[in-house]
């Protein structure tokens, strides 16, 4: 059995400020990687999950931190999986607990859909404390050929 991570992969990284207006730049960065092999539907779902992860870091994790506080993002494209990591300097929270506690927001609620969108898209979704007092949001989406 050959697992997807033994295959060829490509990785790109970027760092942006705590600034919602950087979303266009983040999306452009994401789309520059050669993703011709990824089904378009999967790619668009991951692009949306990235936007939700980034804006979540700005609006929640970094809500009381200066604009210069960096948010680092890494994208690795494997043969049959997309792996996305987002590091922030926020206080952190228990993702599993939050997801369990939050039902889909009432149909006509204005907010609260970001994390649920990532959870629905990703096959693996974690948010864990890591080195340098940071948190890492990890999402993996696998796809068939």
């Amino acid at each position, binding site marked *: 059995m050959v697992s997807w991570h033994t295959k060829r992969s490509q990785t790109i990284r970027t760092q942006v400020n705590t600034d*919602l*207006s950087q*979303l*266009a730049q983040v*999306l452009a960065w994401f789309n520059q990687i050669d993703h011709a092999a990824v089904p*378009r*539907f999967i790619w*668009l*779902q991951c*692009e*949306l999950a990235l*936007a*939700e992860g980034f*804006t979540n870091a700005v*609006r929640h994790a970094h809500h009381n931190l200066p604009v210069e506080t960096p948010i680092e993002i890494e994208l690795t494209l494997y043969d049959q999986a997309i792996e996305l990591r987002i590091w922030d300097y926020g206080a952190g929270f228990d993702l599993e607990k939050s997801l369990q506690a939050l039902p*889909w927001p009432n*149909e*006509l*609620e*204005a*907010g609260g*859909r*970001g994390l*649920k*969108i990532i959870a*629905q*898209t990703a096959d693996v979704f974690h948010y864990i404390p890591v080195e340098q007092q940071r948190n890492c949001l990890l999402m993996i989406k696998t796809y068939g050929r």
Partner: protein
Amino acid sequence: MHSNIKVIQPSGILDSTQTHELRRCITEAVEHGATLILVDLKQVTFMDSSGLGALVTALKAVRAAGGQLCVCSINEQVKILFELTSMDRVFDIFPDCEAFLDQCRRTESDFEEPVYSHV
């Protein structure tokens, strides 16, 4: 000339940096008596949950004023967002602006050409 039909055309990325302007435009339309409001998303390249949240807020406000808010021309990405959040079951989604206006012509006895606004 005052039409009760208003077409609002945002463009580019519809995220939290654009939502204020969109909401302002919709509120203004309601205050000017618009009862049929179409948010034409043809020029929107990307929408996130904040953009969707603004549309949901607007939908509530328009309904509360006795009007209807519809959307049209959603691209593949926006369709994914609507489906992931089940908002495709909440919003009336038209293929394009013409399809919306065709319905207005059929249902509105005093149909007048809509007022267009770019956001």
